[in-house]
């Protein structure tokens, strides 16, 4: 394992940086809007918000193609948007409306956009890790060159099927990139209350694959590490494990910061707020000569998109009563 490279010297294209900034701000503003809806009780579906972790979804997805697969978990609004999921359909899904990406059956925790490589997100901890291993197996058999990425939290590494899956992916050299978002908490329990040491990146050693510890609030570091992992996977050399270190600004679920979880959390948040991944990239753009008014224009444009999406969701119909029992079984062909 190695510590992640510093991003300052990275000769990344400015357009790519602006694109990643746009995606991160879209996620940040969407999550803030959703937090308001949760607080005002306009929406009921449990929402696990991603504020503070945006650089991971955006850095990883920027290194993927549209037809690569990503699999998410309970905290996956950011993954969905970063991969190119439709904002209107996400908002409508959170409102439980027929026009939602899952037809109003999934809610916040079940997003999908197969047209951009999102077969689904589910809240059972670690559940999509074996599924992603399976899409990796499918790609290897079909030789379709696609990459599969499961996104999961640090808590998921405590589940048995994480270990089963990473072993199998390593054994069969599957094109899978295991992206662990270590936000230091599983629900209310801090990492060191759940494992004897803060050493997740060592998992790579055990399975003889790269295990990288990355600053998960540095979008460019995340992007570059993913690029390296993608290249390795495409050469048939197998999976990589990326531990992206970050911090969840809000509580496990809902809009609250959950500072009452412990004195420690208040201290931790004070330490992490200045590491804001969005602010860091904004500063880099300005240092690279991007005009502040250009950044302001991006921010405001996204705010307008979110207003449009909220209006779309609010004005969308509920699912019809007679559709209650639809699709228990399907007659569709699988996506490919």
């Amino acid at each position, binding site marked *: 394992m190695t510590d992640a490279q510093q991003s300052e010297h990275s000769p990344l294209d400015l357009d790519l940086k602006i694109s990643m900034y746009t995606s991160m701000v879209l996620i940040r503003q969407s999550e803030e809007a959703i937090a308001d809806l949760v607080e005002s009780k306009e929406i009921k579906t449990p929402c696990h918000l991603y504020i503070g972790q945006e650089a991971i979804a955006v850095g990883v997805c920027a290194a993927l193609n549209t037809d690569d697969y990503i699999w998410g978990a309970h905290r996956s609004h950011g993954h969905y948007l970063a991969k190119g999921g439709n904002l209107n359909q996400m908002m409508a899904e959170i409102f439980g409306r027929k026009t939602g990406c899952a037809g109003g059956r999934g809610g916040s925790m079940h997003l999908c956009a197969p047209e951009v490589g999102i077969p689904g997100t589910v809240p059972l901890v670690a559940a999509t890790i074996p*599924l992603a291993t399976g899409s990796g197996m499918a790609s290897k058999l079909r030789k379709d060159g696609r990459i599969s990425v499961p996104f999961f939290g640090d808590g998921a590494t405590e589940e048995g099927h994480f270990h089963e899956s990473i072993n199998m992916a390593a054994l069969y050299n599957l094109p899978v990139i295991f992206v662990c978002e270590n936000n230091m908490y599983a629900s209310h329990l801090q990492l060191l209350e759940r494992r004897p040491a803060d050493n997740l990146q060592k998992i790579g050693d055990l399975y003889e694959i790269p295990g990288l510890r990355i600053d998960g609030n540095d979008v460019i570091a995340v992007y570059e590490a993913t690029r390296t992992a993608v290249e390795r996977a495409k050469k048939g050399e197998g999976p990589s494990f990326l531990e992206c270190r970050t911090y969840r600004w809000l509580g496990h679920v809902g809009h609250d910061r959950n500072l009452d979880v412990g004195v420690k959390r208040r201290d931790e948040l004070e330490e992490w707020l200045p590491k804001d991944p969005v602010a860091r990239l904004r500063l880099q753009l300005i240092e690279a000569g991007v005009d502040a008014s250009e950044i302001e224009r991006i921010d405001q444009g996204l705010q307008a998109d979110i207003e449009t999406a909220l209006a779309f969701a609010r004005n969308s119909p509920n699912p019809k009563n007679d559709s209650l029992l639809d699709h228990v079984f399907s007659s569709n062909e*699988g996506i490919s």
Partner: protein
Amino acid sequence: MRLLSYAQAIREAHAQLLESDPRVFVIGQGLYSPWYAGSSLLDIDKDYGRDRVIDSPVSENATTGAAVGAAIVGMRPIVFHPRMDFMLLAVDPIVNQAANWSYLFDGKINVPVVIRSVINRGGEQGAQHSQALQAMFMHIPGLKVVMPSTPYDAKGLLIAAVNDGNPVMYIDDRWLYEETGEVPEEMYQVPIGSAQIMREGADVSIVATSYMVSHAMTAAVQLEDQGIQAEIINLRSIKPWDKETVLASVQKTGRLVIADAAWATGGIAAEIGMTISSALFSELKSPVQRVTLPDAPAPIATAHEEIYYPDATNIVNAVKNLLN
């Protein structure tokens, strides 16, 4: 027509599926060993390659989850569990994921996975090597469950399961592996949800699953000697089950015995009995009877096994109770 054993019929279905559909692959423990799979997968890896016939690490959850994930992205995997007991380590991908996916995502994405699990009981194997858990899985919306009882079913139901487009649990039984029967050489499907009337009779309907079908056929011969004509229904598909065929039969006979070698409480017999009692209350000539395992784990001692597992005698006795 050509005779094959039940195990050979399963093997032939695998071979024809692997031959005809590049989306099909097989994963699970024991695929390269007759110790686990009997002759049902004999040398299939040699014919179709170990890329597509994957004898896996000891990871029920990951192999099942991988099969589910591959199915979601368009493959047609068969995941193999040589003992149903061990499959319980993989309940999340089966129940939470595969069975829910179509509904959860509004029918946009289906999960054409076959979960093959084997009941392998008797021989003093005891409580964790003998379980028949079909009722647990019958309970789950979004999951189909089939139990072949003849070589013909064994081949046709596996091919139907792979082609269904939904998650299907295919439960075969080691006690049937050497049974022989007529099996067509070509690929064919036994439609999921269709029962088969194995023998017609006017006095009592006996619905049986898996190896209880052959015991029911034996019981029918014994009953005939006593002047009782039993109609034997091979259920074949547990979920969905063929209500139409069972209803029509019981409308004719007015009597029903259900034989399922699994626990009584919350079982298949309870479900069918409730459905038929409710639909045909006024036409039943006597209460529905069931022949099942007692509500206890499988024993070890042969002496206990002999009284634990039901057979034709239990079915004959159930019919006699019902006629008295």
